[in-house]
């Protein structure tokens, strides 16, 4: 196995935890990839902020209906049983706690569960979309992310230095190296790559990793 997971492999790992019969919002970009790896036999109903519940795969190229898109403005199709609704009802589903899982990307995650994923600071055009609602909107908030930044800096921190998206909201983090649950404001290791020692993992993680019993191996298929 490689020294770190690809994004597809991180998405695959997160997808294995999607509960059967759950309502899930997958954030724009990387998190959307999770839908591809949903285990066979599980029924998951996807929500998109712009007012569609129970959408399916992308249509073939050339067959898009551009009135039928997801929050990332990508063309989608509908499953049988899909529903349309307006934006206030859509965010009632989010804010009202009706989603089981929302999955987002991250710049930084703090051991307190704080998330920074919308702004890299001054100098560019700020854009927040639905992220600040989604982090308060689901029973579980998952993050999928590379374990470190492109420059090799830790993303799992004692506290975030970038502008926050939400306070104390993240419940689980799937990284390119490990899976953590945030419990009592600590990163509790659930799984790590078997090729990596705990010390090696800690070395690229600013926050202290808590280990309760032996962590399981993070095993994913080649994709």
């Amino acid at each position, binding site marked *: 196995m490689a020294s770190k997971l690809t994004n597809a492999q991180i998405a695959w790992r997160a997808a294995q935890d999607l509960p*059967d*019969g759950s*309502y899930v919002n997958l954030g724009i970009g990387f998190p959307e990839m999770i839908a591809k790896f949903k285990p066979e036999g599980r*029924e998951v*109903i996807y*929500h998109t902020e712009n007012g569609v*519940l*129970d959408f399916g795969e992308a249509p073939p190229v050339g067959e898009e209906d551009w009135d039928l898109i997801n929050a990332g403005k990508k063309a989608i199709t*509908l*499953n*049988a*049983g*899909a*529903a*349309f*609704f307006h934006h*206030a*009802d859509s*965010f*009632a*589903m*989010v*804010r*009202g*706690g*009706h*989603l089981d899982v929302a999955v987002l990307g991250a710049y930084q995650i703090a051991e307190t569960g704080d998330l920074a994923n919308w702004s890299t600071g001054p100098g560019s055009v700020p854009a927040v979309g639905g992220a600040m609602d989604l982090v*308060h*909107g689901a029973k579980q908030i998952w993050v999928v992310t590379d374990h470190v930044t492109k420059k090799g800096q830790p993303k799992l921190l004692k506290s975030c230095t970038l502008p926050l998206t939400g306070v104390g909201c993240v419940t689980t983090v799937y990284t390119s190296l490990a899976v953590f649950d945030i419990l009592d404001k600590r990163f509790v290791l659930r799984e790590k790559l078997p090729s990596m020692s705990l010390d090696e993992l800690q070395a690229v993680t600013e926050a202290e990793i808590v280990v309760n019993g032996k962590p399981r191996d993070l095993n994913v298929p080649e994709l």
Partner: protein
Amino acid sequence: MDKIYPGMADAISDIEDGMTVMIGGFGGSGAPIELIHALVDRYKTTGTPGGLTVVNNNAGNGGIGIAAMINAGMVAKMICSFPRSSDPRAFTDRYLAGEIGLELVPQGTLAERIRAGGAGIPAFYTPATFGTQLAEGKPVAEFDGKSYVQERWLKADVALIKAELADRKGNLTYRKAARNFSPLMAAAAKVTIVQARQVVATGGIDPEHIITPGIFVNRVVEVTDPQQEEALLRAEAS
């Protein structure tokens, strides 16, 4: 995912003493009579669930529906806007005897509080009740030179809802003005239990026409020829 329950009794079997139960309907329009009567039957047989707080626009009429719940003695408190009806005895007698509680809420505030409960809005401001008895003890604030009263969300443990069409994913439509509070209550309750006149195939309701998306629904029982409270009362009276 299949939210269809074969029987009424199963669908309501875990409603517990002391729960808050929202019941759809405005007068007889939209009242889920079969679900209510199944709950009354359970209470009469087992003594549970009692001590309920019931949320509805009204407080029962004649001896049917919510009035039957009150007569059975399973309701501790009503949250409603208009506890009057053509025959309000079930509630009135107990209220005047101090045997049942009442939280009186203006109809629009009741609707908005339930909507807020489902939408994750813990509090909001409304002009309704400002300067009246019903605002006593509530925070007041001024916005753009006008005074408003702060109201809290209203949530429930269970909602009992009457729908027209349903599918196995819980998508619902309603019939005419029977819609009223039901879509709001479906979203504001932890467990939403629906009696639908017809269960259709998944995809059998046009996605543009679904009023309550299935995310707000937990259980559906088909009741193909539902009773109508108003019709029952008129039949009783004649």
